[in-house]
């Protein structure tokens, strides 16, 4: 073996060994990644790898992903996927042996299906086994995510809690763009996605889970846009209000969004509070 290969191998093993040891000693809790894709994966991996968490889970899209974890308290996990839909979270929740007591399903974005790459990374052999064997293999424990955690903790200390978020300067332009997108009906994927959602819900109900539907508030001008209306009607037709629990979060209030559909931080936190106090949920999460 050449000296280069030997030395590279030794260094490689040493770095991984030291890092693994440090993780085992400190066992940090990481629920935020360097970007939304990483955060999506971390949320799902944490749920799969820690059966003790998540008596109640939220599955949804980037709209529900805005609900901050600190507004939900312990025992309530937000598995919403920015850039995706409720389907991916639902697929993962239905696939693991431990079932939550409640699953809250955000219905705003349902024309996107299960993200296979994410489901594969979270569920398929040998990923969970490797995560159990080597902590450094967990997405949450990537060095950059540990750094992001440190920085965000520092920023929160400096600013004494989350600041009030303001609408961006180009809000009107972004809203116009959303209005254009929402003026079209949902595409053909909506029906098969709702059918898949039905399958997953039946699997969860068989395990004793109660399913709760909700729609995230959006800008008033978009509430009855063709896209929102059609998705709402399609889901209500498939899971009617007489047999399923539906939470009504929008009582005609003027919700503030950054682009027409994503609530600003403070309003998203307020939605989090309403979810945990919703009458549908009989026994409150821990």
């Amino acid at each position: 073996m050449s000296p280069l290969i030997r030395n590279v191998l030794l260094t490689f093993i040493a770095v991984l060994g030291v890092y693994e040891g440090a993780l085992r000693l400190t066992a940090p809790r990481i629920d935020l990644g360097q970007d939304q894709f990483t955060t999506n994966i971390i949320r799902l991996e944490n749920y799969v790898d820690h059966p003790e968490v998540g008596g109640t889970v939220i599955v949804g899209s980037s709209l529900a992903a805005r609900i901050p974890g600190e507004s939900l308290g312990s025992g309530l996990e937000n598995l919403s996927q920015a850039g995706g839909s409720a389907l991916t979270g639902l697929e993962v929740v239905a696939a693991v042996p431990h079932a939550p007591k409640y699953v809250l399903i955000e219905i705003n974005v349902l024309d996107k299906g299960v993200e296979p790459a994410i489901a594969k990374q979270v569920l398929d052999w040998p990923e969970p086994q490797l995560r159990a064997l080597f902590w450094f293999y967990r997405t949450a424990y990537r060095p950059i995510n540990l750094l992001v955690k440190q920085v965000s903790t520092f920023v929160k200390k400096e600013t004494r809690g989350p600041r009030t978020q303001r609408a961006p300067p180009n809000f009107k332009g972004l809203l116009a763009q959303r209005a254009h997108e929402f003026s079209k009906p949902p595409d053909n994927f909506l029906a098969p996605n709702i059918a898949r959602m039905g399958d997953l819900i039946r699997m969860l109900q068989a395990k004793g889970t109660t399913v709760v539907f909700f729609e995230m508030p959006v800008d008033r001008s978009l509430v009855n846009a063709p896209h929102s209306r059609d998705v709402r009607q399609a889901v209500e037709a498939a899971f009617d209000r007489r047999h399923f629990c539906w939470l009504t979060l929008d009582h005609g209030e003027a919700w503030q969004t950054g682009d027409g559909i994503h609530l600003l931080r403070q309003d998203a936190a307020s939605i989090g509070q309403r979810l945990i106090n919703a009458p549908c949920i009989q026994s409150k999460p821990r």
Partner: protein
Amino acid sequence: MSIDIRAIGRAGALGKPPRFVRWTMLFTSGVFFVFLTVAFLVYYLPLPGAWQLRWLIFASLFFYSYEFPALVLLLLLVAATDVVVSRKIITSPQSKLWAVSGVAFNLAVLAFFKYNRLLALTFPSLGGVASEPVRLLLMLPLPIGISFYIFHGISLLVDTLRDGPSRRDVSSARSFGEHAQKTLLYVSFFPQLIAGPIVKAHQFYPQIRRKAFRDIDWDGAITALIVGYFLKVVIADNMSQQTFWLAYPYFLNDSTLDLLGLLLGYSVQIFADFAGYSLIAIGLARLFGYNLPTNFLFPYISESFSEFWTRWHMSLSSWLRDYLYFPLGGNRKGRLRTYLNLMIVMGLGGMWHGAAWSYGIWGLWHGAALAIERMVVGPRSATARSLAIRILRGALVFAVVTAGWLLFKLPHFGDVIAYLRTLFTNLHAESNKPMDMLILIYAIPVVAYHLNYLIKRRARGLGRSYFLDGLARHIALGVLAAAIVLNPGPSKAFIYFQF
């Protein structure tokens, strides 16, 4: 009257960039490592000499056709034409006619599959008169790697026509079968098939011979592979998560600082992605006993635009120089003609990258930079003695090059204008500090990579390695290898796959 600038580049004539076939084994995928292991082990089995070459051809074709077998038919058609025509150039008295026909065929294939959709969108009336099958053909997806293997074919034909080493290599084949096998390997060699480096015929043919396991350049291969995978998996793939926001309409929300950060990030990403791919290709080729040319030589240290193009995608710039710039007359036909040649070569080089007019504008942007530089400082941009001036020059080149990447990232010209306008309107918007910080973090290794080269060049000249030397090099490679495992980004196709 207000003009919707975003309509520019969208309506009819300048529509969406073409689709391309993404289906291929990524160098970063698990299935590729299985393929590589099998290909490598069988390659060095003690089989008769000719079987080693045949195995490598088979492995390359398998690699190319893994996800989409029909793709290989076009590759085989092009390779077969190159085999026949290059042989005819040697044996026929009408060698020039054969060469011109062969090059024309290669260019026609490239034009048909790469620019079909652009032409259809630019001249919608063509679709109106064309029959249904023709319209269907016009909407065919872009076969991956086509730009690269077509350039290989043209290089073979031109080198064979010219009285030089390649002609001797082609004519030295003992039989038509041997020539066909060598040419098929040259066109399809899997490490460089999808995105280069572009190897000229006279660089590759002399290397085709029986390879022995004991002759593998392990140090060179391991170094190239680790640095390449680090650049791709750790830097480019992670940076892509940040530069995802460099897209309409997301950037409308960003502050001027964020927008500058995103540009810097994309500049780093595209370097790490393509230089990473090239290094992986070089490392893989070395495992099979072949040397591919260096494709990136620390381009962001360049102090002039002409220097930049001797460091960035070197195999393409040298191909364009040899097969386009020189035949056009280069700089031998006066100053004005030189400027025009630069614009033509860079404009066509830009269009080679993709079938969207914005790539052509990107090429002209660089052509103009080269021509203006030549006008101002002459044919050789003399190295300044003052460090401050050299830094300023380097910063100017980097800024112009980085601004040009906008045309890569935002193929709709209207989006580019919207981006530039937002740069000036969002001066006081709230910055996305976490994003800016992450861009900076992932840019640091690339800056250090370039600085190390500069310091090394300045202190004691360059040895065998552009990287570090001795034990420091071994340890640094070990740390980089660990970083690949510890901090990979989400697996993404290489940016240059679409070209």
